[in-house]
């Protein structure tokens, strides 16, 4: 299947470039710094209510890292092919648009996942190197990584979409950053004390609970819930369907760009 050939080539083009290693190093350094900072803060203040991993995941710096990391990883995918003109060569081979979209998406998701390996290594070392060992809770830790993967899955698909609608990598990165930033900020509305809005349209009246919607969409809340060891299927449905929507839009946009070229 052309998908595997394309995926292999996408992974190759990511990892043949020194940029990938610079990004991975920067991510490893930042996430480890955040982890160590949380560990020493918890240690000094003798906090027992949350784990280091939980503290790491709720720190604003952690979210700033996510907001920068994803656009940098996805900005090249389509924008570069359009700029170099290789898209014409690619799409005159007997392959389908969705195979290209899926291959580029999977490669970026693998790149994203790799960037989080240092966090797992940190958790592991904290458990191994301390005496007496810091307790390690498998289920909450697994769920934390699952949450990071889930919203990453969605954000990467957003990044892929912003890359297909522009020819310029920087514009693509900025658009993806803005989207993720706005999405994150919507989630923050759940912490405000907003009254439900009563809306009446053409005789129909309903209440719009902004707080509830914001809390349903809040990536921060999803991560904290999962980090506490509570598995909730709603975020899974949200992110999987969000990803599918973005990939569908990407495929349509790719088709539209080809038809307009």
């Amino acid at each position, binding site marked *: 299947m*052309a998908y595997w*050939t*394309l995926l292999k*080539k996408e992974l*190759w*083009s990511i990892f*043949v*470039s020194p940029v990938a290693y610079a990004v991975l190093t920067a991510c490893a350094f930042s996430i480890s710094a955040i982890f160590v900072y949380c560990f020493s803060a918890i240690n000094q203040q003798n906090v027992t209510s949350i784990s280091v991993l939980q503290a790491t995941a709720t720190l604003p710096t952690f979210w700033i890292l996510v907001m920068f990391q994803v656009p940098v990883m996805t900005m090249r995918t389509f924008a570069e092919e359009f700029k*170099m*003109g*290789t898209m*014409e*060569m*690619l*799409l*005159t*081979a*007997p*392959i*389908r648009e969705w195979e290209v979209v899926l291959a580029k998406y999977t490669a970026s998701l693998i790149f994203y996942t790799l960037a989080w390996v240092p966090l797992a290594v940190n958790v592991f070392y904290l458990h191994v190197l301390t005496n007496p060992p810091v307790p390690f809770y498998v289920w909450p830790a697994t769920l934390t990584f699952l949450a990071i993967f889930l919203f990453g899955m969605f954000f990467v698909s957003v990044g892929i979409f912003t890359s297909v609608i522009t020819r310029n990598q920087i514009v693509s990165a900025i658009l993806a950053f803005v989207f993720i930033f706005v999405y994150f900020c919507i989630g923050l509305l759940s912490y405000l004390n907003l009254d439900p809005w009563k809306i009446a349209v053409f005789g129909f009246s309903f209440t719009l609970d902004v707080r509830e919607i914001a809390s349903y969409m809040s990536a921060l809340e999803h991560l904290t819930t999962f980090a506490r060891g509570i598995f909730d299927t709603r975020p899974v449905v949200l992110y999987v369907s969000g990803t599918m929507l973005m990939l569908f839009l990407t495929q349509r946009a790719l088709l539209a760009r*080809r*038809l307009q*070229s």
Partner: protein
Amino acid sequence: MIDVQNLSKSYSGHRAIQNLTFEVRKGEIVGLLGPNGAGKSTTMRILSGYLPPTDGKVTIAGFDVVTESLEVRKRIGYMPEKVPMYPDMRVNEFLRFRAELKKIPSRRIRARMDAVKQLCQLGDLERTIIGTLSKGTQQRVALADALIHEPELLILDEPTAGFDPTQIRAARELVKELSSHHTILLSTHILSEVEMLCTRVIIINRGRIEKADTPQNLTRMVRGGHYLKLEVKAAKEALISKLEAVKEVEDVEAIPHEEGWCTVRVYSAPGVDVRDNIFQTILKEQWQLREMTTVRATLEEAFVELTQD
């Protein structure tokens, strides 16, 4: 092999090509000629399945380029005008990637890669990074890519654009060689190439077909492009009056120069040979003759005449 019916393409209101109708039969080498912006690349992009037509129907090997695009793409080798490449890939890596993409069975990939590398003279460059190659060499890589899956039809958009004269000659030999197995549609600016290679030429201008014929017929159509050139020692007036009287001669021009010699141009209808009659007249008049040549218009002249305003 290619059947194009009333093909039109508009870009946001501007009609790039309108009502093109032509066909290319199996085994032909057809040249698509036209000034820049005439719609050659657009036509080729539609044939390759990359762009959909606004109107009209194109079938390649019996498959519709819009509804059966995948089948069409399996059967064509397309080389775009601006050979875009992945600059970080090595020649070998690129060819393997393209071979896999074009679904060549894995056991045959090695053999196909060797074959196209030999055809396109890339043997000693297989480990070179594409970005470091010259434009002409990159084009050879693109041609190798177009050939790798043994397509029935080759669509080559200005294949010799970045070549030096030696490479052009090599490319001409290569295209001749390829024509035994492939049907070829190519566009180029080098008209001497077309004259030597193509069995048929389609000249398009401003999105319309001006003429489609063999290169020989096209050159014959050029006004004043076919004449007999003579150098005769005689008086200008006598020459004109006697030669114009010769059967089937349409017009005579004479330019006198040194020592009583005249350069004469004798025009006749296309396809008519007046050499014998002219020679007999000269003998009868006992004029001295030191040159008699048939001058034919080049395809370049035909092209300019057909495409100028």
